[in-house]
């Protein structure tokens, strides 16, 4: 399946054109994208470090996950909305960018993992998941989100 025509259609959308042609738009959207990055980083790390036995280890994983969950969802929503805005302003560049595809693959994996395996583990009853499993889930989660972040930053350096 060739996605290039779809990307070119995205580039021609009025929203994409507007963002591309307004001096401040890309910078402002990107700044909001970064602000949400800080929040999602905090929400992810709080729980994942706990899974690895660091950070707030006097607290139950379950409780921490309940506290961090709404902020993860909110910041992810902001990331996706602003991310789509950034994408729409330069889809053709993205299409030919290796870091873009790396980031999108990592993002798809990170979201799938977070809302299935990760969610099950962090919301499981105390003691039902072995420490080894917790460690693995924490490492995989951090690695996937790091891939998303690093890939995202790299889009700006390429092309």
């Amino acid at each position, binding site marked *: 399946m060739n996605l290039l025509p779809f990307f070119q259609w995205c580039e021609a959308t009025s929203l994409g054109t507007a963002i591309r042609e307004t001096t401040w738009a890309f910078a402002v959207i990107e700044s909001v994208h970064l602000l949400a990055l800080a929040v999602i980083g905090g929400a992810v790390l709080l729980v994942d470090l706990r899974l690895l036995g660091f950070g707030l280890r*006097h607290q139950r994983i379950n409780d921490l996950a309940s506290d961090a969950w709404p902020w993860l969802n909110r910041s992810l929503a902001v990331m996706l909305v602003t991310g789509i805005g950034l994408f729409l302003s330069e889809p053709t560049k993205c299409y030919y960018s290796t870091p873009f595809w790396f980031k999108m693959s990592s993002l798809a994996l990170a979201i799938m993992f977070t809302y299935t395996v990760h969610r099950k583990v962090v919301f499981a009853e105390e003691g039902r998941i072995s420490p080894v499993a917790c460690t693995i889930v924490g490492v995989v989660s951090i690695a996937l989100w790091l891939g998303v972040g690093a890939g995202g930053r790299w889009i700006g350096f390429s092309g």
Partner: protein
Amino acid sequence: MSLLSFCQWLADTPGSIALHESLFMYPVVESVHVLTLCVFVGMSTMLDLRLLGLTLRRVPLTDITSRLFPWMFAGFAVMVITGIALFYAIPVRSYQSIWFRMKVVLLICAGLNAWIFHATIYKSVRQWDVTEDVPPRARLAGILSLVFWTGIIVFGRMIAYNWYDCDRPQSALVVWVAGCTAEQQGRK
């Protein structure tokens, strides 16, 4: 020696030129600087939200500070070191960037806010450690911290844009804030 001539001297040092021109080192340093946001600002934001009663309400504040401060300090150290390296790579333009200057002002504000918080209201933390009833002064510190760090991130990002650079014609206000020289503005 003015700060500007110091920056000009810095820009001519071999290390600065090497970092500025390196194909990989500069992007790597910049990426580390940006991604460490997640560690430092991410955790600091969770702490601020706790002060405002928006998350971790049942977790004692002292548990958060004692367990997370080492991570925050480490994250902050990485941000400062990579930040200095980024400045070192592009000293003159950074020094004359209105965004960089506003970011430095906000960094000082954020530092003062944290210092005042710890030197005053945090001393009585034992009395409100486990309650959701955070004193107004501590809430204010949380709000100010969120505001300052929002500004620091936004201004930091804007440094990359050249709209207000001294090598372009600028308004009197920008010339004053950025400290552009008459020479740069083409009035020789």
